[in-house]
């Protein structure tokens, strides 16, 4: 009795067998430009995606800077090739989380939190290649179909369990229900892995260094640890993928992506040190806002780790200022002293940074240091039309 049920279930929900052999990146599938959806299901999911894209196009969360959008598009085109990148529309949204996603109709959504965390162009290429792979492999449609089959199985199992006359049948049906629900998440994890592999294939054919993709996940693991530590939570670094996980764990991804990169024996055409400045220039106009959004996440240790990663060996004025704001917002007496130090360094490197004077003044006043008044006055002189000018001027009487 058990065996046919298990076989039927495996056939219906397509259970993924974990591969023990080392992965190889797939060869690039043939690509059709201006692909049109085929069949009822695909046209349906595209219709929903079209409707969502209409809303997104006019949304307030979009960052509509043509230079920034143009840069992201160039990276996509360099990664997947000029003909493929014609099939996607790119939307950069203001969202401090590390995230990007793709809808079935070719809408690529990139969060500003991702742009903040990426270190150079090659890393951005790897992530956007992964998103494009979801589009090329039609993961939206296939995922929809698998969820539908699995929920059909689960619904029938539920009804049979409710009709069951023996405890044994009811129990079997309930376990089928659980397996069917689990299969939806297992299928999603497998799709993510496939997208990772195809992204590596794009990277192989592009000018970028394949080693970059694994580095991202290493840093995400460390940032996750820092956040967990700050929130007095257990580290999830070595956890296995949970029942409801939609993605493979970060450590799994870091491991197989690094193996793939090593097997490729391909350094990037240009050393990655050359990619980084180009990326930094493209983000320069926006980094202050991205950092400001990150500070509002109320994640002291995660943010402190992130700032350290962004700085590497050189603390630039914007990072020093952000670190000052971070410490000042936590506000222990010792944090205020540290914050004043960071603001002071930021001002030493960039004396035109009025906001650093503001932060320094407020931190000093809170530490009962009369020098704070002078710093605030300086801020008010530099920013005569500051929105908080009237309020701050009451502090410097």
């Amino acid at each position, binding site marked *: 009795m058990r065996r046919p049920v298990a076989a039927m279930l495996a056939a219906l929900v397509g259970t993924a067998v974990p591969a023990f052999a080392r992965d190889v990146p797939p060869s690039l599938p043939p690509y059709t430009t201006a692909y049109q*959806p085929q069949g*009822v*299901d695909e*046209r*349906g*999911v*595209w*219709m*929903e995606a079209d*409707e969502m894209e209409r*809303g997104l*196009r*006019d*949304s*307030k969360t979009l960052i509509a800077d043509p230079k920034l959008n143009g840069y992201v598009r160039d990276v996509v085109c360099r990664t997947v090739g000029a003909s493929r990148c014609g099939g996607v529309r790119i939307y950069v949204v203001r969202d401090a989380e590390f995230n990007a*996603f793709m809808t079935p109709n070719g809408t690529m959504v990139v969060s500003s939190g991702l742009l903040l965390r990426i270190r150079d162009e090659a890393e951005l290429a790897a992530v956007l290649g992964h998103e494009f792979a979801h589009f090329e492999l039609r993961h939206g449609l296939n*995922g929809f179909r698998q*969820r*539908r089959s*699995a*929920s*059909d*199985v*689960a*619904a*029938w199992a*539920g*009804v*049979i369990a*409710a*009709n069951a006359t023996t405890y044994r049948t009811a129990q079997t049906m309930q376990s089928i*229900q659980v397996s*069917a*629900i689990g299969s*939806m*998440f297992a299928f*999603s994890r497998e799709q993510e892995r496939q997208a990772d592999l195809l992204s590596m294939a794009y990277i192989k054919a592009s000018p970028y260094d394949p080693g970059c993709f694994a580095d991202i996940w290493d840093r995400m693991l460390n940032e996750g640890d820092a956040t967990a530590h700050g929130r007095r939570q257990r580290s999830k670094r070595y956890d296995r993928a949970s029942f*409801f996980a*939609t*993605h493979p764990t970060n450590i799994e991804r870091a491991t197989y992506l690094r193996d793939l990169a090593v097997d490729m024996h391909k350094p990037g055409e240009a050393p990655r040190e050359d990619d980084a400045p180009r990326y930094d220039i493209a983000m320069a106009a926006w980094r202050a806002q991205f950092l400001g959004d990150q500070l509002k996440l109320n994640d002291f240790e995660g943010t402190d780790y992130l700032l350290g990663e962004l700085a590497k060996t050189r603390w630039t004025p914007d990072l020093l200022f952000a670190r000052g704001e971070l410490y000042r917002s936590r506000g222990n007496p010792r944090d205020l002293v540290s914050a004043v130090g960071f603001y002071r360094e930021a001002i030493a490197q960039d004396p035109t940074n009025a906001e650093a004077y503001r932060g320094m003044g407020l931190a000093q006043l809170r530490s009962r240091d009369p020098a704070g008044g002078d710093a605030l006055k300086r801020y008010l002189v530099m920013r005569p039309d500051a929105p908080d000018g009237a309020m701050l001027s009451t502090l410097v009487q």
Partner: protein
Amino acid sequence: MFRTLLRPVLAVVLLVVAAQPAWAQEKSGTKEGFVLKQGTAKILLMRPTIKVGAQSTGGMFEPNADWTQQAKDNLGAALSVAQTKLGNAVIAADEPVGQAAETMADYRALFSVLADSVIQYQFFPGNRLPTKKRKGVFDWTMGPGVGEIAKGTGADYALFIFDEDQYGSTGRKVLQVFAALARVPVKSGQHSGYAGLVDLRTGDLVWLNADQAMGGDVRTPEGAQKRVAQLLEDFPGSTALAKSAPKLASK
């Protein structure tokens, strides 16, 4: 991503738990003392949100592009016939560009939040906000700024329409029968929608009809006419009698 995966799971879980909710709630409201004088109003029809598809055996929504297009055409035709009968002029809003597009998107989003709030905090008596408890009160507004979206059209009112139809698939119906044997209620198909009228001068919501169980197959012209008749039931001025008393109809 997690959300899209959670939906079918919830659908399955609800299959076992949820009895069909009794729609004992109110389904439409008109602003106190509001009367739409017959044959005088110019109504701007906002791009309606229409989604039509099937409901899978497991209860998932399967969007269908053809049915949606048919429903859009049929409902559009039925709507203009119905309003012309009332003597009101209905003009479809143009697709805006640039800054106007952003404003339009904002107000469309605001309206859907407003409609959801009315349904949740006024139409459902057990959940009613203290400020909405007085008998006959129907006091909701989008603010006078909403006039922006009708600039240059000369319209007096904006009509927002939302419609979602899920037709139970054969599999769902078979499942329903077998579930009934075990006395598990399974709902096959779901048809919900709302229509709301906003005064473009004040921004006040003057009428909202939110029916969570409507008839009429929107894929056919006749069904769409029936649906529009239900959607516009209690539309201000739709009866010859002037409604002097405020009205909160219950189904």
